[in-house]
Protein backbone atom coordinates (compact mmCIF):
# COMPACT_ATOMS: atom_id res chain seq x y z
CA UNK A 1 0.00 0.00 0.00
CA UNK A 2 1.28 3.42 -0.86
CA UNK A 3 0.83 5.94 1.92
CA UNK A 4 -0.43 9.23 0.50
CA UNK A 5 -1.20 12.62 1.95
CA UNK A 6 -4.84 11.52 2.11
CA UNK A 7 -3.97 8.80 4.62
CA UNK A 8 -2.23 11.32 6.84
CA UNK A 9 -5.16 13.73 6.58
CA UNK A 10 -7.57 10.93 7.49
CA UNK A 11 -5.42 9.92 10.48
CA UNK A 12 -5.12 13.47 11.74
CA UNK A 13 -8.87 14.03 11.30
CA UNK A 14 -9.54 10.95 13.42
CA UNK A 15 -7.07 12.13 16.07
CA UNK A 16 -8.61 15.59 16.05
CA UNK A 17 -12.12 14.17 16.41
CA UNK A 18 -11.04 11.95 19.31
CA UNK A 19 -9.52 14.99 20.98
CA UNK A 20 -12.61 17.12 20.40
CA UNK A 21 -14.92 14.36 21.63
CA UNK A 22 -12.77 13.90 24.72
CA UNK A 23 -12.91 17.62 25.39
CA UNK A 24 -16.68 17.75 25.00
CA UNK A 25 -17.64 14.58 26.87
CA UNK A 26 -15.16 14.19 29.72
CA UNK A 27 -15.75 16.18 32.89
CA UNK A 28 -12.20 16.21 34.21
CA UNK A 29 -10.19 19.38 33.61
CA UNK A 30 -6.94 17.43 33.22
CA UNK A 31 -8.48 15.12 30.63
CA UNK A 32 -9.79 18.21 28.84
CA UNK A 33 -6.23 19.58 28.78
CA UNK A 34 -4.92 16.30 27.38
CA UNK A 35 -7.66 16.29 24.75
CA UNK A 36 -6.62 19.77 23.64
CA UNK A 37 -3.02 18.53 23.37
CA UNK A 38 -4.25 15.66 21.21
CA UNK A 39 -6.06 18.13 18.95
CA UNK A 40 -2.90 20.22 18.63
CA UNK A 41 -0.88 17.12 17.76
CA UNK A 42 -3.38 16.27 15.04
CA UNK A 43 -2.72 19.77 13.70
CA UNK A 44 1.04 19.17 13.81
CA UNK A 45 0.67 15.90 11.92
CA UNK A 46 -1.36 17.65 9.22
CA UNK A 47 1.17 20.45 8.88
CA UNK A 48 4.22 18.23 8.69
CA UNK A 49 2.64 15.73 6.31
CA UNK A 50 1.34 18.50 4.07
CA UNK A 51 4.79 20.05 3.92
CA UNK A 52 6.32 16.69 3.01
CA UNK A 53 3.91 16.34 0.07
CA UNK A 54 4.33 19.86 -1.28
CA UNK A 55 5.66 19.81 -4.85
CA UNK A 56 9.24 20.91 -5.36
CA UNK A 57 9.75 24.44 -6.64
CA UNK A 58 10.81 24.65 -10.28
CA UNK A 59 13.41 27.38 -10.72
CA UNK A 60 13.79 29.53 -13.86
CA UNK A 61 16.96 27.82 -15.03
CA UNK A 62 15.49 24.35 -14.72
CA UNK A 63 16.76 23.98 -11.18
CA UNK A 64 14.59 22.13 -8.70
CA UNK A 65 14.63 23.19 -5.06
CA UNK A 66 12.73 21.66 -2.13
CA UNK A 67 9.52 23.45 -1.05
CA UNK A 68 9.66 26.07 1.68
CA UNK A 69 9.52 24.37 5.09
CA UNK A 70 6.72 26.60 6.35
CA UNK A 71 4.65 23.65 7.58
CA UNK A 72 7.53 22.30 9.64
CA UNK A 73 8.18 25.74 11.10
CA UNK A 74 4.47 26.16 11.88
CA UNK A 75 4.53 22.83 13.73
CA UNK A 76 7.47 24.01 15.86
CA UNK A 77 5.55 27.15 16.76
CA UNK A 78 2.51 25.07 17.69
CA UNK A 79 4.66 22.87 19.94
CA UNK A 80 6.18 25.91 21.68
CA UNK A 81 2.86 27.66 22.17
CA UNK A 82 1.22 24.43 23.35
CA UNK A 83 3.87 24.22 26.08
CA UNK A 84 3.12 27.79 27.18
CA UNK A 85 -0.58 27.04 27.08
CA UNK A 86 -0.13 23.91 29.19
CA UNK A 87 1.88 25.90 31.74
CA UNK A 88 -0.86 28.51 32.12
CA UNK A 89 -3.57 25.85 32.01
CA UNK A 90 -2.02 23.68 34.72
CA UNK A 91 -1.55 26.75 36.91
CA UNK A 92 -5.23 27.58 36.50
CA UNK A 93 -6.30 23.98 37.20
CA UNK A 94 -4.04 23.92 40.25
CA UNK A 95 -5.49 27.14 41.64
CA UNK A 96 -8.99 25.77 41.03
CA UNK A 97 -8.04 22.55 42.83
CA UNK A 98 -6.61 24.42 45.82
CA UNK A 99 -9.89 26.26 46.32
CA UNK A 100 -12.39 23.54 45.47
CA UNK A 101 -10.51 20.27 46.13
CA UNK A 102 -11.60 18.83 42.78
CA UNK A 103 -10.65 19.13 39.13
CA UNK A 104 -14.06 18.12 37.81
CA UNK A 105 -15.46 20.74 35.49
CA UNK A 106 -19.03 20.11 36.63
CA UNK A 107 -17.93 21.39 40.04
CA UNK A 108 -17.39 24.76 38.35
CA UNK A 109 -20.97 25.85 38.97
CA UNK A 110 -20.73 28.95 41.13
CA UNK A 111 -21.23 31.32 38.21
CA UNK A 112 -24.50 30.90 36.41
CA UNK A 113 -27.63 32.72 35.36
Amino acid sequence: MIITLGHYLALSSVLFTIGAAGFLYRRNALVALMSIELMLNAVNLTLVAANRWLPAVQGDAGTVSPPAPSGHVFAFFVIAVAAAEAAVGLAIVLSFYRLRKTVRTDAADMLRG
Partner: protein
Amino acid sequence: MNLVLLLSPILIPTVGALVLMMLDAFQKEDGGLAMPTALLHFTAAAMALALWQRGVPSDTSALHGFLAIDKTSLFLDATIALGGGIASLLAGGYLAEHKLDRGEYYPLIAFSTAGAMLLVSASDMLMLFLGLETMSLGVYAMTGFRRGSPRSAEASLKYFLLGSFAAALMLFGSALLYAVTGHTDYAGIAEVLHAAPANAAADAAAAIQVVTRSRISILAMLLIVIAMAFKVGAVPFHMWTPDAYEGAPTSTMAYMSSVVKAAAFGAFARVMLAVYGDAASAGSAAGWPAMLAWVAVATMTVGNLVALTQTSVKRMLAYSSIAHAGYVLLGVIAAPREGTGTTAYASVLFYLLAYTVSNMGAVGALILAGRRGAESVSYDDLAGYARRHPAAGFAMTLFLLSLTGVPPTVGFFAKFYVIRATLDAGYTALALIAVVNSAVSAYYYLGVLVKMYMRDPAPGAALASPMRSGYVTVAILTAAVFVVWMGVMPERWLDLAREAVGAATAAAPSAATAGGNAAP
Protein backbone atom coordinates in the same frame (compact mmCIF):
# COMPACT_ATOMS: atom_id res chain seq x y z
CA MET B 1 11.12 52.32 5.85
CA ASN B 2 12.94 51.21 8.90
CA LEU B 3 11.51 47.89 10.07
CA VAL B 4 11.71 48.84 13.72
CA LEU B 5 9.73 52.00 13.05
CA LEU B 6 7.16 50.06 11.06
CA LEU B 7 6.66 47.56 13.87
CA SER B 8 6.89 50.11 16.68
CA PRO B 9 3.22 49.95 17.74
CA ILE B 10 3.74 46.23 18.44
CA LEU B 11 7.30 46.52 19.71
CA ILE B 12 6.54 49.22 22.30
CA PRO B 13 4.22 47.06 24.44
CA THR B 14 6.43 44.00 23.92
CA VAL B 15 9.65 45.65 25.08
CA GLY B 16 7.69 47.65 27.65
CA ALA B 17 6.29 44.46 29.17
CA LEU B 18 9.84 43.12 29.62
CA VAL B 19 10.90 46.38 31.29
CA LEU B 20 7.83 46.28 33.52
CA MET B 21 8.73 42.74 34.60
CA MET B 22 12.18 43.93 35.61
CA LEU B 23 10.73 46.96 37.41
CA ASP B 24 8.35 44.68 39.27
CA ALA B 25 11.16 42.31 40.23
CA PHE B 26 13.39 45.03 41.61
CA GLN B 27 10.97 47.35 43.33
CA LYS B 28 10.60 46.97 47.07
CA GLU B 29 6.83 47.18 47.39
CA ASP B 30 3.96 46.54 45.03
CA GLY B 31 1.99 49.20 43.26
CA GLY B 32 2.94 52.14 41.12
CA LEU B 33 3.20 50.28 37.83
CA ALA B 34 -0.21 51.42 36.55
CA MET B 35 1.01 54.79 35.31
CA PRO B 36 4.04 53.45 33.38
CA THR B 37 1.81 50.77 31.82
CA ALA B 38 -0.79 53.32 30.78
CA LEU B 39 1.89 55.62 29.35
CA LEU B 40 3.32 52.66 27.45
CA HIS B 41 -0.06 52.01 25.87
CA PHE B 42 -0.69 55.65 25.02
CA THR B 43 2.80 55.86 23.46
CA ALA B 44 1.98 52.86 21.31
CA ALA B 45 -1.27 54.55 20.25
CA ALA B 46 0.66 57.74 19.44
CA MET B 47 3.20 55.75 17.39
CA ALA B 48 0.37 54.16 15.42
CA LEU B 49 -1.05 57.62 14.72
CA ALA B 50 2.39 58.98 13.76
CA LEU B 51 2.87 56.12 11.30
CA TRP B 52 -0.60 56.85 9.92
CA GLN B 53 0.29 60.53 9.45
CA ARG B 54 3.60 59.77 7.86
CA GLY B 55 1.99 57.37 5.45
CA VAL B 56 2.41 53.63 5.43
CA PRO B 57 4.90 52.53 2.80
CA SER B 58 3.43 50.44 0.03
CA ASP B 59 6.50 48.24 0.01
CA THR B 60 6.34 46.12 3.15
CA SER B 61 8.18 43.17 1.65
CA ALA B 62 10.53 43.17 4.64
CA LEU B 63 7.65 41.61 6.58
CA HIS B 64 7.56 38.68 4.12
CA GLY B 65 3.78 38.61 4.09
CA PHE B 66 3.55 37.67 7.76
CA LEU B 67 2.13 40.97 8.92
CA ALA B 68 0.09 43.58 7.13
CA ILE B 69 1.02 46.98 8.51
CA ASP B 70 -1.59 49.11 6.79
CA LYS B 71 -4.05 51.74 7.90
CA THR B 72 -6.59 49.10 8.97
CA SER B 73 -4.15 47.56 11.38
CA LEU B 74 -2.91 50.97 12.56
CA PHE B 75 -6.49 52.07 13.29
CA LEU B 76 -7.10 48.88 15.27
CA ASP B 77 -3.68 49.16 16.95
CA ALA B 78 -4.63 52.63 18.16
CA THR B 79 -8.02 51.36 19.37
CA ILE B 80 -6.38 48.47 21.21
CA ALA B 81 -3.68 50.66 22.73
CA LEU B 82 -6.22 53.25 23.85
CA GLY B 83 -8.37 50.53 25.42
CA GLY B 84 -5.34 48.89 27.02
CA GLY B 85 -4.18 52.23 28.44
CA ILE B 86 -7.58 52.94 29.98
CA ALA B 87 -7.71 49.37 31.32
CA SER B 88 -4.31 49.78 33.00
CA LEU B 89 -5.50 52.99 34.67
CA LEU B 90 -8.65 51.19 35.87
CA ALA B 91 -6.47 48.37 37.17
CA GLY B 92 -4.33 50.89 39.05
CA GLY B 93 -7.41 52.01 40.98
CA TYR B 94 -9.26 48.71 41.22
CA LEU B 95 -6.41 46.41 42.24
CA ALA B 96 -5.14 48.80 44.90
CA GLU B 97 -8.63 49.29 46.37
CA HIS B 98 -9.25 45.55 46.56
CA LYS B 99 -5.79 44.62 47.83
CA LEU B 100 -4.86 42.74 44.68
CA ASP B 101 -2.10 45.09 43.61
CA ARG B 102 0.59 42.64 42.59
CA GLY B 103 2.94 43.89 39.94
CA GLU B 104 2.66 40.97 37.50
CA TYR B 105 -0.73 42.23 36.35
CA TYR B 106 0.82 45.07 34.35
CA PRO B 107 3.29 43.08 32.22
CA LEU B 108 0.39 40.71 31.51
CA ILE B 109 -1.72 43.60 30.17
CA ALA B 110 1.18 44.83 28.04
CA PHE B 111 1.88 41.34 26.62
CA SER B 112 -1.79 40.84 25.86
CA THR B 113 -1.90 44.18 24.08
CA ALA B 114 1.12 43.20 21.98
CA GLY B 115 -0.65 39.94 21.13
CA ALA B 116 -3.84 41.79 20.22
CA MET B 117 -1.91 44.08 17.86
CA LEU B 118 -0.19 41.10 16.30
CA LEU B 119 -3.61 39.53 15.84
CA VAL B 120 -5.10 42.49 13.97
CA SER B 121 -1.97 42.91 11.83
CA ALA B 122 -1.68 39.23 10.97
CA SER B 123 -1.79 38.34 7.30
CA ASP B 124 -0.58 34.81 7.79
CA MET B 125 -2.19 31.92 9.63
CA LEU B 126 0.93 31.46 11.76
CA MET B 127 0.83 35.08 12.94
CA LEU B 128 -2.92 34.84 13.51
CA PHE B 129 -2.31 31.89 15.82
CA LEU B 130 0.65 33.49 17.61
CA GLY B 131 -1.23 36.76 18.15
CA LEU B 132 -4.32 34.95 19.38
CA GLU B 133 -2.37 32.90 21.89
CA THR B 134 -0.14 35.74 23.08
CA MET B 135 -3.23 37.80 23.75
CA SER B 136 -5.25 35.00 25.32
CA LEU B 137 -2.59 33.53 27.63
CA GLY B 138 -2.17 36.90 29.35
CA VAL B 139 -5.91 37.36 29.70
CA TYR B 140 -6.42 33.85 31.14
CA ALA B 141 -3.94 34.72 33.87
CA MET B 142 -5.53 38.13 34.47
CA THR B 143 -8.95 36.47 34.79
CA GLY B 144 -7.73 34.21 37.58
CA PHE B 145 -5.84 37.03 39.24
CA ARG B 146 -7.94 37.03 42.41
CA ARG B 147 -6.21 33.89 43.61
CA GLY B 148 -8.18 33.41 46.82
CA SER B 149 -11.53 33.57 45.10
CA PRO B 150 -13.16 30.37 43.84
CA ARG B 151 -15.27 32.44 41.45
CA SER B 152 -12.19 33.95 39.86
CA ALA B 153 -10.55 30.52 39.55
CA GLU B 154 -13.72 29.10 38.03
CA ALA B 155 -13.97 31.97 35.56
CA SER B 156 -10.41 31.52 34.36
CA LEU B 157 -10.81 27.72 34.15
CA LYS B 158 -13.87 28.06 31.92
CA TYR B 159 -12.30 30.80 29.82
CA PHE B 160 -9.06 28.87 29.45
CA LEU B 161 -10.64 25.55 28.46
CA LEU B 162 -13.01 27.02 25.88
CA GLY B 163 -10.41 29.49 24.61
CA SER B 164 -7.85 26.73 24.03
CA PHE B 165 -10.47 24.57 22.37
CA ALA B 166 -11.29 27.43 20.02
CA ALA B 167 -7.60 27.97 19.27
CA ALA B 168 -7.24 24.27 18.41
CA LEU B 169 -10.21 24.50 16.02
CA MET B 170 -8.68 27.53 14.32
CA LEU B 171 -5.34 25.77 14.04
CA PHE B 172 -6.84 22.70 12.44
CA GLY B 173 -8.60 24.98 9.97
CA SER B 174 -5.29 26.64 9.13
CA ALA B 175 -3.53 23.29 8.82
CA LEU B 176 -6.19 22.01 6.42
CA LEU B 177 -5.85 25.17 4.34
CA TYR B 178 -2.10 24.63 4.26
CA ALA B 179 -2.59 21.02 3.21
CA VAL B 180 -4.76 21.95 0.22
CA THR B 181 -3.01 25.16 -0.86
CA GLY B 182 0.58 24.86 0.33
CA HIS B 183 0.42 28.39 1.69
CA THR B 184 -0.02 29.86 5.14
CA ASP B 185 -0.34 33.52 4.10
CA TYR B 186 -3.82 34.84 3.36
CA ALA B 187 -2.92 36.12 -0.11
CA GLY B 188 -1.30 32.84 -1.14
CA ILE B 189 -4.19 30.76 0.18
CA ALA B 190 -6.75 32.94 -1.59
CA GLU B 191 -4.77 32.81 -4.83
CA VAL B 192 -4.72 29.01 -4.91
CA LEU B 193 -8.28 28.59 -3.66
CA HIS B 194 -9.80 30.98 -6.16
CA ALA B 195 -7.60 30.21 -9.13
CA ALA B 196 -9.92 29.68 -12.09
CA PRO B 197 -10.08 25.92 -12.70
CA ALA B 198 -9.39 26.48 -16.39
CA ASN B 199 -7.93 23.11 -17.24
CA ALA B 200 -10.07 21.25 -14.74
CA ALA B 201 -12.70 20.28 -17.26
CA ALA B 202 -10.10 18.83 -19.57
CA ASP B 203 -8.31 16.92 -16.87
CA ALA B 204 -10.58 14.68 -14.79
CA ALA B 205 -7.99 14.09 -12.08
CA ALA B 206 -7.50 17.82 -11.66
CA ALA B 207 -11.24 18.31 -11.44
CA ILE B 208 -11.50 15.85 -8.59
CA GLN B 209 -8.65 17.64 -6.89
CA VAL B 210 -10.43 20.97 -7.25
CA VAL B 211 -13.61 19.53 -5.74
CA THR B 212 -11.70 18.04 -2.78
CA ARG B 213 -9.86 21.29 -2.31
CA SER B 214 -13.03 23.34 -2.21
CA ARG B 215 -14.70 20.88 0.21
CA ILE B 216 -11.74 20.93 2.57
CA SER B 217 -11.51 24.69 2.32
CA ILE B 218 -15.18 24.98 3.32
CA LEU B 219 -14.52 22.73 6.32
CA ALA B 220 -11.54 24.90 7.22
CA MET B 221 -13.71 28.00 6.91
CA LEU B 222 -16.29 26.49 9.27
CA LEU B 223 -13.58 25.70 11.82
CA ILE B 224 -12.14 29.23 11.61
CA VAL B 225 -15.59 30.86 11.87
CA ILE B 226 -16.48 28.75 14.92
CA ALA B 227 -13.16 29.56 16.58
CA MET B 228 -13.63 33.27 15.96
CA ALA B 229 -17.24 33.10 17.15
CA PHE B 230 -15.91 31.66 20.41
CA LYS B 231 -13.41 34.47 20.73
CA VAL B 232 -15.88 37.28 20.09
CA GLY B 233 -18.55 35.59 22.19
CA ALA B 234 -21.18 35.05 19.49
CA VAL B 235 -24.19 32.77 20.11
CA PRO B 236 -24.13 29.71 20.25
CA PHE B 237 -20.49 29.85 21.34
CA HIS B 238 -21.02 32.46 24.07
CA MET B 239 -21.46 30.20 27.11
CA TRP B 240 -18.16 31.15 28.67
CA THR B 241 -18.61 34.90 28.29
CA PRO B 242 -20.90 35.85 31.20
CA ASP B 243 -19.17 33.47 33.62
CA ALA B 244 -15.69 34.61 32.72
CA TYR B 245 -16.66 38.29 32.84
CA GLU B 246 -18.47 37.97 36.15
CA GLY B 247 -15.79 36.01 37.94
CA ALA B 248 -12.86 38.04 36.64
CA PRO B 249 -11.58 41.11 38.49
CA THR B 250 -13.59 44.03 37.09
CA SER B 251 -10.53 45.69 35.55
CA THR B 252 -9.85 42.45 33.63
CA MET B 253 -13.47 42.39 32.53
CA ALA B 254 -13.01 45.86 31.08
CA TYR B 255 -10.02 44.63 29.08
CA MET B 256 -11.64 41.38 27.96
CA SER B 257 -14.90 42.89 26.84
CA SER B 258 -13.35 45.77 24.89
CA VAL B 259 -9.80 45.13 23.74
CA VAL B 260 -9.97 41.37 23.24
CA LYS B 261 -13.26 41.71 21.41
CA ALA B 262 -11.97 44.50 19.15
CA ALA B 263 -8.85 42.49 18.30
CA ALA B 264 -10.79 39.31 17.59
CA PHE B 265 -13.24 41.15 15.34
CA GLY B 266 -10.42 42.95 13.51
CA ALA B 267 -8.70 39.64 12.79
CA PHE B 268 -11.98 37.92 11.93
CA ALA B 269 -12.95 40.53 9.35
CA ARG B 270 -9.48 40.52 7.81
CA VAL B 271 -9.18 36.76 7.49
CA MET B 272 -12.67 36.34 6.09
CA LEU B 273 -12.27 39.12 3.54
CA ALA B 274 -8.75 38.15 2.51
CA VAL B 275 -9.20 34.38 2.28
CA TYR B 276 -12.91 33.96 1.64
CA GLY B 277 -13.76 37.31 0.10
CA ASP B 278 -14.42 35.90 -3.37
CA ALA B 279 -17.87 36.03 -4.93
CA ALA B 280 -18.52 32.29 -4.52
CA SER B 281 -17.75 32.14 -0.78
CA ALA B 282 -19.20 35.55 0.08
CA GLY B 283 -22.22 35.52 -2.24
CA SER B 284 -25.38 36.17 -0.31
CA ALA B 285 -27.23 32.94 -1.11
CA ALA B 286 -25.06 30.18 0.32
CA GLY B 287 -21.83 31.82 1.45
CA TRP B 288 -20.55 32.69 4.89
CA PRO B 289 -22.41 36.03 5.16
CA ALA B 290 -25.72 34.13 5.05
CA MET B 291 -24.46 31.74 7.71
CA LEU B 292 -23.20 34.60 9.86
CA ALA B 293 -26.53 36.39 9.48
CA TRP B 294 -28.18 33.62 11.54
CA VAL B 295 -25.38 33.83 14.07
CA ALA B 296 -25.83 37.60 14.28
CA VAL B 297 -29.59 37.33 14.81
CA ALA B 298 -29.13 34.71 17.52
CA THR B 299 -26.33 36.72 19.15
CA MET B 300 -28.28 39.98 19.33
CA THR B 301 -31.51 38.36 20.47
CA VAL B 302 -30.12 35.95 23.06
CA GLY B 303 -27.72 38.57 24.44
CA ASN B 304 -30.45 41.13 24.88
CA LEU B 305 -33.15 38.81 26.19
CA VAL B 306 -30.92 37.22 28.81
CA ALA B 307 -29.54 40.62 29.80
CA LEU B 308 -33.11 41.64 30.66
CA THR B 309 -33.31 39.05 33.41
CA GLN B 310 -30.05 39.86 35.19
CA THR B 311 -29.86 41.26 38.70
CA SER B 312 -26.12 41.91 38.57
CA VAL B 313 -24.95 44.92 36.58
CA LYS B 314 -21.64 43.20 35.89
CA ARG B 315 -23.37 40.17 34.39
CA MET B 316 -25.78 42.45 32.52
CA LEU B 317 -22.78 44.18 30.93
CA ALA B 318 -21.45 40.74 29.96
CA TYR B 319 -24.68 39.86 28.13
CA SER B 320 -24.79 43.33 26.63
CA SER B 321 -21.30 42.71 25.24
CA ILE B 322 -22.68 39.58 23.57
CA ALA B 323 -25.49 41.66 22.07
CA HIS B 324 -22.98 44.25 20.82
CA ALA B 325 -20.97 41.46 19.19
CA GLY B 326 -24.14 40.75 17.23
CA TYR B 327 -24.33 44.34 15.98
CA VAL B 328 -20.68 44.27 14.90
CA LEU B 329 -21.32 41.02 13.04
CA LEU B 330 -23.86 42.90 10.91
CA GLY B 331 -21.05 45.08 9.59
CA VAL B 332 -18.85 42.05 8.93
CA ILE B 333 -21.70 40.41 7.00
CA ALA B 334 -22.13 43.48 4.81
CA ALA B 335 -18.39 43.97 4.27
CA PRO B 336 -17.79 41.64 1.29
CA ARG B 337 -20.57 43.33 -0.76
CA GLU B 338 -19.22 45.05 -3.83
CA GLY B 339 -19.55 48.84 -3.80
CA THR B 340 -21.04 49.32 -0.35
CA GLY B 341 -18.65 46.91 1.35
CA THR B 342 -15.99 49.50 2.11
CA THR B 343 -18.35 51.60 4.19
CA ALA B 344 -19.58 48.50 5.97
CA TYR B 345 -16.03 47.51 6.88
CA ALA B 346 -15.41 51.09 8.03
CA SER B 347 -18.54 50.92 10.19
CA VAL B 348 -17.11 47.82 11.86
CA LEU B 349 -13.91 49.69 12.76
CA PHE B 350 -15.95 52.67 13.96
CA TYR B 351 -18.12 50.40 16.10
CA LEU B 352 -15.12 48.69 17.66
CA LEU B 353 -13.58 52.01 18.71
CA ALA B 354 -16.94 53.35 19.91
CA TYR B 355 -17.71 50.20 21.88
CA THR B 356 -14.22 50.14 23.38
CA VAL B 357 -14.53 53.63 24.86
CA SER B 358 -18.21 53.31 25.87
CA ASN B 359 -17.83 49.92 27.50
CA MET B 360 -14.53 50.80 29.13
CA GLY B 361 -16.23 53.85 30.60
CA ALA B 362 -19.27 51.92 31.84
CA VAL B 363 -17.12 49.29 33.52
CA GLY B 364 -14.93 52.09 34.91
CA ALA B 365 -17.98 53.78 36.41
CA LEU B 366 -18.95 50.45 37.96
CA ILE B 367 -15.45 50.11 39.42
CA LEU B 368 -15.74 53.65 40.79
CA ALA B 369 -18.96 52.73 42.59
CA GLY B 370 -17.32 49.90 44.58
CA ARG B 371 -15.20 50.19 47.67
CA ARG B 372 -13.07 47.55 49.33
CA GLY B 373 -15.25 44.74 50.65
CA ALA B 374 -18.34 46.30 49.03
CA GLU B 375 -18.15 45.97 45.28
CA SER B 376 -21.34 47.31 43.77
CA VAL B 377 -22.32 44.73 41.22
CA SER B 378 -26.09 44.40 41.52
CA TYR B 379 -28.84 46.81 40.52
CA ASP B 380 -29.91 47.06 44.16
CA ASP B 381 -26.43 48.12 45.27
CA LEU B 382 -26.75 51.19 43.08
CA ALA B 383 -30.11 52.38 44.44
CA GLY B 384 -30.01 56.12 45.02
CA TYR B 385 -26.32 56.24 44.03
CA ALA B 386 -26.64 59.07 41.52
CA ARG B 387 -28.60 61.26 43.91
CA ARG B 388 -25.98 60.90 46.60
CA HIS B 389 -23.04 61.23 44.20
CA PRO B 390 -24.17 63.26 41.17
CA ALA B 391 -20.82 63.36 39.35
CA ALA B 392 -20.12 59.63 39.60
CA GLY B 393 -23.72 58.89 38.73
CA PHE B 394 -23.54 61.15 35.69
CA ALA B 395 -20.45 59.30 34.42
CA MET B 396 -22.31 55.99 34.60
CA THR B 397 -25.32 57.61 32.91
CA LEU B 398 -23.27 58.93 30.00
CA PHE B 399 -21.69 55.56 29.21
CA LEU B 400 -24.90 53.61 29.60
CA LEU B 401 -26.67 56.03 27.26
CA SER B 402 -23.86 55.49 24.77
CA LEU B 403 -24.26 51.71 25.04
CA THR B 404 -28.02 52.14 24.56
CA GLY B 405 -27.42 54.26 21.49
CA VAL B 406 -28.88 57.62 22.47
CA PRO B 407 -27.65 60.61 20.46
CA PRO B 408 -25.44 62.61 20.73
CA THR B 409 -23.25 59.92 22.28
CA VAL B 410 -21.07 57.81 20.00
CA GLY B 411 -23.11 54.66 20.61
CA PHE B 412 -25.96 56.03 18.51
CA PHE B 413 -23.77 56.67 15.48
CA ALA B 414 -21.98 53.34 15.83
CA LYS B 415 -25.31 51.51 15.62
CA PHE B 416 -26.61 53.87 12.95
CA TYR B 417 -23.64 53.28 10.62
CA VAL B 418 -23.72 49.52 11.06
CA ILE B 419 -27.46 49.32 10.44
CA ARG B 420 -27.19 51.66 7.45
CA ALA B 421 -24.46 49.43 6.01
CA THR B 422 -26.71 46.41 6.54
CA LEU B 423 -29.54 48.16 4.68
CA ASP B 424 -27.20 49.23 1.86
CA ALA B 425 -26.13 45.62 1.45
CA GLY B 426 -29.79 44.61 1.10
CA TYR B 427 -30.29 42.79 4.40
CA THR B 428 -33.49 44.61 5.35
CA ALA B 429 -34.75 41.96 7.77
CA LEU B 430 -31.44 41.90 9.59
CA ALA B 431 -31.51 45.68 9.99
CA LEU B 432 -35.06 45.53 11.38
CA ILE B 433 -34.11 42.86 13.90
CA ALA B 434 -31.15 44.99 14.97
CA VAL B 435 -33.39 48.03 15.52
CA VAL B 436 -35.89 46.01 17.57
CA ASN B 437 -33.05 44.53 19.61
CA SER B 438 -31.60 47.94 20.21
CA ALA B 439 -34.96 49.10 21.56
CA VAL B 440 -35.15 46.06 23.85
CA SER B 441 -31.67 46.79 25.17
CA ALA B 442 -32.79 50.24 26.34
CA TYR B 443 -34.88 48.53 29.01
CA TYR B 444 -31.99 47.07 30.95
CA TYR B 445 -29.57 49.94 30.46
CA LEU B 446 -32.19 52.47 31.57
CA GLY B 447 -33.07 50.12 34.45
CA VAL B 448 -29.71 51.04 35.98
CA LEU B 449 -30.50 54.75 35.60
CA VAL B 450 -33.93 54.31 37.19
CA LYS B 451 -32.29 52.55 40.16
CA MET B 452 -29.61 55.20 40.47
CA TYR B 453 -31.87 58.24 40.24
CA MET B 454 -35.33 57.18 41.40
CA ARG B 455 -35.04 54.36 43.92
CA ASP B 456 -34.09 54.52 47.57
CA PRO B 457 -31.81 51.83 48.95
CA ALA B 458 -33.48 49.14 51.05
CA PRO B 459 -33.41 49.99 54.77
CA GLY B 460 -30.20 48.78 56.34
CA ALA B 461 -28.54 48.06 52.99
CA ALA B 462 -24.96 49.21 52.52
CA LEU B 463 -24.80 52.53 50.68
CA ALA B 464 -22.63 52.51 47.58
CA SER B 465 -20.15 55.35 47.60
CA PRO B 466 -17.47 56.07 45.03
CA MET B 467 -13.89 55.15 45.77
CA ARG B 468 -11.25 57.83 45.64
CA SER B 469 -8.79 57.09 42.91
CA GLY B 470 -7.01 59.45 40.56
CA TYR B 471 -6.36 56.55 38.17
CA VAL B 472 -10.01 55.63 37.78
CA THR B 473 -11.02 59.29 37.43
CA VAL B 474 -8.50 59.87 34.65
CA ALA B 475 -9.58 56.64 32.92
CA ILE B 476 -13.25 57.65 33.01
CA LEU B 477 -12.49 61.18 31.81
CA THR B 478 -10.45 59.81 28.89
CA ALA B 479 -13.27 57.48 27.89
CA ALA B 480 -15.83 60.27 28.30
CA VAL B 481 -13.84 62.61 26.05
CA PHE B 482 -13.92 60.04 23.26
CA VAL B 483 -17.60 59.20 23.78
CA VAL B 484 -18.58 62.86 23.45
CA TRP B 485 -15.99 63.82 20.82
CA MET B 486 -16.88 60.95 18.51
CA GLY B 487 -20.55 61.59 19.17
CA VAL B 488 -20.33 65.26 18.24
CA MET B 489 -18.36 64.80 15.03
CA PRO B 490 -19.10 61.22 13.96
CA GLU B 491 -18.63 61.88 10.23
CA ARG B 492 -14.99 62.84 10.73
CA TRP B 493 -14.32 59.66 12.66
CA LEU B 494 -16.16 57.59 10.10
CA ASP B 495 -14.02 59.19 7.40
CA LEU B 496 -10.94 58.11 9.33
CA ALA B 497 -12.30 54.56 9.47
CA ARG B 498 -13.06 54.76 5.73
CA GLU B 499 -9.52 55.87 5.05
CA ALA B 500 -8.27 52.97 7.16
CA VAL B 501 -10.23 50.49 5.09
CA GLY B 502 -9.37 52.03 1.72
CA ALA B 503 -5.69 51.67 2.44
CA ALA B 504 -6.17 48.03 3.32
CA THR B 505 -7.54 47.13 -0.07
CA ALA B 506 -4.81 49.06 -1.84
CA ALA B 507 -2.07 47.39 0.19
CA ALA B 508 -3.35 43.88 -0.48
CA PRO B 509 -4.09 43.88 -4.20
CA SER B 510 -4.15 40.12 -4.52
CA ALA B 511 -6.80 39.81 -1.84
CA ALA B 512 -8.80 42.62 -3.39
CA THR B 513 -8.72 41.21 -6.88
CA ALA B 514 -9.40 37.68 -5.69
CA GLY B 515 -12.21 38.88 -3.51
CA GLY B 516 -13.58 41.63 -5.68
CA ASN B 517 -14.58 43.14 -2.34
CA ALA B 518 -14.39 46.69 -1.20
CA ALA B 519 -12.95 48.04 -4.43
CA PRO B 520 -13.16 51.80 -4.03
